[in-house]
C-alpha cells in the first residue's frame, strides 16, 4: 500500500484507483431496513453517489457506527464497516485511524449516540482532531428505542418518556462542536442532495476531524421536524447557506443578509443595509463560526447550512505516527538490549 497524494489533504495516504466506480459499487448485498420514508435513505444514496468521485480504493474506506437507526449505515455500504456499540464509534474509529493512515475512516452517528451516551468521545475526538469524518444524523428523537426525546429535542417535547413534556434544554450540535475545538464543522439537510454532497466533499478533503450535522426526518416518531425548511417559501426565509469568502445573503434574490450586532450576528433585509455591512463568511474565523452557529435556533426561525468552520490544525493521528516514526529512525528496536536495561548481574556456574 503506497501513500498517494491526490491533492486532498484529508485523503493523503489513502490509495486511489483508476477503475471507474459508480454508486452501485458502493451498495452492499444487504437489504436496507429503515422505515419507509426515512431520511436515512437519502443520505445513504447521496453518500453512495458521492464516494465514486473521490476515486479511492473501496477496500480502503471504512464506516464505523454506534447504535441507533442511522448506525445501521455501514451494513449497506460495500466497504469495510463496523457497527459498534452505543456512543463509542469515535473512540473505535480513533484507534483505527491511528493504526492505519491508509484508510478513509467515516463515523456514522445520531443525536442520541453522539450527543448523549457518546458525548464525551465526540468532544475529545474533535479536540484531538483525529482524521475522521463524523456524520451526525440529527432527527431530534430516539427512533430505535421507539420514540423518546433526545438531547436535541425541543423543550416541552411530548414523547413516550415525557408524557407532559420534556424539561431538558437541547444542545446546538454545531456550537458544541466549535466549543470542542473542532477544526471542521458543517451542516446540511437530508433532502438537499447538492448541499449535502458539497459539505461531504469539503469534509473529505479536510485533514482532521470533520463534523457534519445532517438534519434528518424520522417519519415515524418525529415526522415533519424539519418541514419548515423543506417548504420552498419557508426555506427562502429560514435557510442561510454560507460559503467561505462570500457575503452571507439568502432568500429570493438575496433579500436577506447577515450583519454584525453586538458580539453576535443578526439577520437584516439587504435593502436596509449598506453592502459593506454584510458579513463575509470566513471559515477560519472561530468567532464568526460560533456566532453563525448561534444564529441557528432550535425553532428553525433561521438555520445556517454549509461549512461553518474549516481551519488547518495538526491532527492527532499524524502526530502520534510522527513520534513513532521518529523514534524508529532514532533508535533500533533491539529487544535484547531493552530487556537487559542498565543494571544487570551475571551468575556463573
Amino acid at each position: 500500500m503506497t501513500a498517494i497524494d491526490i491533492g486532498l489533504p484529508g485523503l493523503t495516504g489513502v490509495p486511489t484507483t483508476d477503475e471507474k466506480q459508480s454508486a452501485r459499487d458502493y451498495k452492499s448485498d444487504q437489504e436496507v431496513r429503515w422505515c419507509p420514508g426515512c431520511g436515512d435513505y437519502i443520505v445513504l444514496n447521496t453518500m453512495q453517489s458521492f464516494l465514486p468521485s473521490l476515486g479511492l480504493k473501496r477496500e480502503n474506506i471504512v464506516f464505523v457506527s454506534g447504535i441507533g437507526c442511522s448506525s445501521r449505515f455501514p451494513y449497506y455500504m460495500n466497504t469495510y464497516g463496523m457497527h459498534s456499540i452505543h456512543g463509542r464509534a469515535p473512540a473505535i474509529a480513533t484507534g483505527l485511524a491511528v493504526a492505519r493512515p491508509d484508510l478513509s475512516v467515516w463515523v456514522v452517528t445520531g443525536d442520541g449516540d453522539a450527543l448523549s451516551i457518546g458525548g464525551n468521545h465526540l468532544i475529545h475526538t474533535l479536540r484531538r482532531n483525529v482524521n475522521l469524518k463524523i456524520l451526525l444524523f440529527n432527527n431530534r428523537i430516539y427512533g430505535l428505542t421507539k420514540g423518546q426525546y433526545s438531547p436535541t429535542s425541543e423543550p416541552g417535547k411530548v414523547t413516550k418518556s415525557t408524557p407532559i413534556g420534556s424539561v431538558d434544554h437541547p444542545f446546538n450540535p454545531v456550537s458544541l462542536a466549535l466549543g470542542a475545538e473542532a477544526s471542521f464543522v458543517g451542516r446540511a439537510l437530508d433532502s438537499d442532495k447538492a448541499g449535502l454532497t458539497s459539505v461531504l466533499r469539503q469534509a473529505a478533503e479536510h485533514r482532521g476531524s470533520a463534523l457534519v450535522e445532517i438534519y434528518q426526518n424520522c417519519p415515524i416518531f418525529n415526522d415533519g421536524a424539519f418541514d419548515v425548511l423543506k417548504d420552498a417559501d419557508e426555506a427562502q426565509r429560514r435557510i442561510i447557506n454560507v460559503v467561505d469568502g462570500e457575503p452571507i445573503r439568502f432568500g429570493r434574490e438575496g433579500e436577506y443578509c447577515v450583519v454584525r450586532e453586538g458580539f453576535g450576528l443578526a439577520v437584516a433585509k439587504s435593502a436596509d443595509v449598506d453592502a459593506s455591512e454584510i458579513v463575509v463568511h470566513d471559515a477560519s474565523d472561530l468567532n464568526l463560526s460560533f456566532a453563525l452557529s448561534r444564529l441557528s435556533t432550535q425553532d428553525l426561525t433561521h438555520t445556517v447550512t454549509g461549512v461553518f468552520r474549516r481551519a488547518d490544525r495538526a491532527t492527532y493521528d499524524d502526530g502520534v505516527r510522527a513520534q513513532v516514526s521518529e523514534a524508529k529512525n532514532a533508535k533500533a528496536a533491539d529487544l535484547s538490549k531493552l530487556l537487559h536495561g542498565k543494571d544487570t548481574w551475571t551468575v556463573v556456574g
Partner: protein
Amino acid sequence: MSTETRKLDRVVIRFAGDSGDGMQLTGDRFTSEAAAFGNDLATQPNFPAEIRAPQGTLPGVSSFQLHFADYDILTPGDRPDVLVAMNPAALKANVGELPDGGILIVNTDEFSKRNLTKVGYDSNPLEDDSLEKFQVHKIAMATLTIGALEETGLGKKDAERAKNMFALGLLSWMYHRPTEGTERFLREKFAKKPDIAEANVLAFRAGWNYGETTEAFAVTYEVAPAKLNVGTYRQITGNTATAYGIVAAAQLSKLPVVLGTYPITPASDILHELSKHKNFDITTVQAEDEIAGIGIALGASYGGAIGVTSTSGPGIALKSETIGLGVMTELPLLVIDVQRGGPSTGLPTKTEQADLLQAMFGRNGESPVPIVAPQSPSDCFDAVVDATRIALQYRTPVLFLSDGAIANGSEPWMIPDVETLPDLTVEFATDPENFQPYSRDPETLARPWAVPGTPGLQHRIGGLEKQDVTGNISYDPENHDKMVRLRQAKIDGIEVPDVVVDDPDGNAKVLVVGWGSSYGPIGAAARRVRKLGLPVAHAHLRHLNPFPKNLGDVLKSYEKVIVPEMNLGQLALLLRAKYLVDVQSYTKVQGLPFKAEELQDVLADVIKGVSA
C-alpha cells in the same frame, strides 16, 4: 571496640516514614544494592492513595519492605527483622510487626510532643519502656544530616530532606552493601541540580560513616550472594515486566501495538513504560476515559495491530461492554487488569484478587474470555506473551489479571534469550476466493482476521448476532444457539499447558491450589510445612479460563484440596462448580499479600486433619 560481623542467610528490612520522606526511593536503592551484590530478593512497597496525606499522621505512612537472602526466596517476607522508623507515625504503624529482639532504628528528631500527640502517643516511646524488647538505635538523623551538609550552603529545609539517604547509608554499612551504584544513581537522578545531588551523596556517606565511626553498632551483618541459576539477571517490577512482555509480543508477532488506556493506580506505570518504547512500533494513546481506551484498542485490532488496554479496579467495569464487542466481533484484544481492593474505588494502592469472577462472567450474555494470571513480578513477562499468543491465534479478547502486589513488587529476573521466545506470527486473510468473515479455522475455531485495506474482502462486522459463516445479521433462534456454543467452544478449546504439581515428597494427601500473586506465600508456606515433616502438594494456575486439561484429575487425586485467595473464594467457587470437588477455601481481604507464616499454620492444620 571492634565491630563483629555475623553471617545471615536472609534479612527483611522495612523502611517506614512519612509519604514525603522518600521511603520508596530509599527502598528501591537498597534493592538495587542487594541485586548488584547478587542476593535473591523480593520487595513490597506499601503506600497511601493520597499523594501527600497530612504530614506525620498514620494515614500518611509509606513503607518499603525488602527481603534479601543467600538462597532463592519467594516472598517479600512476613515481618521485618529491621525496622527503620523516620517518625512517630511510622513507628506506631509498623512496630507491631517487629518481632521481639528485632532491630529498631529511629529518627529521634521527629519525636516532638506535637508529633507524638498527633498519632496518639501519651508518652514518648523512646523514653518509656515500651520498646525494651527490641534492639533500639536512637539516632538524630535529621540533625546529623543537616550537620553533614553544613558546608554545602544548602538551606536547612533542603538539607533535612536528604535524611533518607543518611538512613540508606547507615543500613548499607550495616549490611556491607556496595555503594557505587547508589552514588552514581543520585548523580544521574539529580543531574540538573548538582548541589542537591552532592547533598544526597554526602548524606549517604554520612550515614555510612556514622555506622563506621560511632560505637553504637556492635554488630554488622553479611548476607552472601544467592546461588541462582546460571544466567544474566536484572531487577524488575511486575508492571515493567508486563510492558516488556507487550514489547516482546509486538516483535514476536511482527505487528504494531496500540495501547489505548486511561491513567489509574496501580496500572499507570504500564502506560508510562510503553510510552518510552515507540521505536518498537508501539503507539500509546491516553484516552478521555476507560471506555475510549479499550475502544481505541479494539479499533486498532480491527486495523491489524495488537490492541492493548490497561486498567484496574473500577476501570475494568467500564470496559465490559467493549470486551463484549470484542467477543462478538472475534478480534484480538489484550485487556490488562492490575487488580486492587474493591468494590468501587476501594483500596487504590492495595492488592486483591477479587476480579476473577468479573473477568470470567462480568458481561451481558454468554461472553467467554480467556483469563491469564501471572504469579510473580518477573512472571508477568512470560504470562503476557502467552496472553497475546491466545488473543492473536484465537482472535479473542484476553483478560490478564495482575494485581497490586505483583505490579509494584520486584524481584530478580533471569533475562531470557530473545531467540528462545515463541513465534507469535499470524496470517491475515487475503484470498477473496470463497472468503467468509465468520468461517472458522477447524483447529482453533478462529475466524479470519481480514483487515481493512485488503482488496476483495470488504465486509461488515458489529455487535449484532452474526449468521454462522457469512457474518450477516441474524436473529434466527437456531443460529444464535449455534453461535453462542461456537464462541464458547472456541475458548474452551484454547490450548494451555497442563498444570504442574510441586510435590517433592511424592506422597502428599493435601493439595494447595493458588492463582496469581499468592504463588510466593503459598510456595514459602509449603516449604515450611514440608520442613516440619508434613507433605503437601502445590499447584499454581496461570490459566483460569480455560483451565488446564489435567486439572480435574489433579484435584481428584488428593484427599483434600485447599485454595487460599485474596477474595471470598472465587477460584474455589469455579473449581467446585466445574469439577464437583469439595475444595476448602481460605480467604483474606486486607489489601495485603498473605504471610507465609499464616499459610503455614493453615496448611499444617489441614494436613494434620487429613492424617488424623
